């Protein structure tokens, strides 16, 4: 709870916003994006940590970006093969994980200075915090915006199950599904988050 409140990449640090805003129209897309970032973050952290002693600081950024880019490419090839519809709906935002500030930020700030084990732990801590935040945003936006809840639809190509609820609520605020709604949802959630955190910290 404490690390979720303190180091949450979206709500506390406001990093990786691009995907948090763009692909949170459905719950499924949101958590799949979170998991994708976790995947890239994990492997890039491992590799960066492994080669950290052989890279001088001056070329750190390009090298790290190339490492991250490689894993993003691997990830997109995997998704394209196994979950083509998800790959389509994530679209360009999947490639944009390459320049996601969270991944590069952790590589620079943590993995390049710490051992592999610690880097893995860090990747999980940050990645899971990110995924939870994404799930939260996706939940709010889909439930209130489109009045549906998609747990499994695009990924059914892999799992074979579909789990979609429709007309969950008696009303819907379609605005939340729009780009404007994305900003407003994150704004309000961040405010609530700040509120909880200040209460938590004062205790």
């Amino acid at each position: 709870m404490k690390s979720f409140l303190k180091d949450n990449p979206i709500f506390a640090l406001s990093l990786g916003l691009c995907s948090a805003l763009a692909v949170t129209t459905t719950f499924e897309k949101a958590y799949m994006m979170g998991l994708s970032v976790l995947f890239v973050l994990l492997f890039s952290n491992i590799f960066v940590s492994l080669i950290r002693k052989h890279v001088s600081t001056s070329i750190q950024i390009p090298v790290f970006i190339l490492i991250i880019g490689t894993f993003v490419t691997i990830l997109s090839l995997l998704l394209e093969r196994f979950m083509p519809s998800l790959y389509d709906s994530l679209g360009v935002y999947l490639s944009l994980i390459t320049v996601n500030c969270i991944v590069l930020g952790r590589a620079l700030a943590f993995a390049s200075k710490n051992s592999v084990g610690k880097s893995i732990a860090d990747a999980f801590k940050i990645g899971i915090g990110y995924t939870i935040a994404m799930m939260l945003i996706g939940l709010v936006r889909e439930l209130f915006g489109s009045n549906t809840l998609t747990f499994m639809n695009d990924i059914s190509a892999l799992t074979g199950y579909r789990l979609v609820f429709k007309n969950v609520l008696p009303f819907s605020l379609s605005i939340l599904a729009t780009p404007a709604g994305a900003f407003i949802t994150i704004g309000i959630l961040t405010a609530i988050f700040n509120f909880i955190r200040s209460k938590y910290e004062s205790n």
Partner: protein
Amino acid sequence: MNLINLFVSGVLSENIVLTKFLGICPFMGTSNKTKDAIGMSLAVTIVTTLSSIITYLLYNYVLVPTNSVYLKTIMFIFVIACMVQILLIIIKNKFKKLYQSLGIYLPLITTNCAVLGITLLNVNSGYSFMQMLVYTLSSCLGFSIVLCIFSSIRENLSEDIPKSFKGYPIAFITAGIMALIFGRLI
């Protein structure tokens, strides 16, 4: 007419910041002062335009013929990173004054998702060269306009905002309202 439509929608209704959420990091992070916003948007425009042309050519004349389209992300980011470095060196040596005003913004651009995003969108949408150019320029213009407006608003936000909303939340909400308004401009 088609190009004009593309241009107008690129600036307004398809604004990369407000509808595609590209370049959000500088949008939220560096845009507290109008001066910074102008510098940032200039730097982004230059880098994006140049790298769009190069990546477009690279994609259509190298990656597609060699059947290695899947490498686009990594190739593009490589091009952008090189572009930023080269520009930095050129500006540093030739245009001292420009370097002083733009120098601090350029390194940040490598990790600006607007640049990579626009180059990827260009090839994904299958634009012709002219369309690509128009789309890139209109996106950059859209980015600059929104960035300048947003920074001028943030500069003037009151100190009396409810405590929980201070900082990022109010910025998000402002951006949301802006997106709502821009969305009406179809």
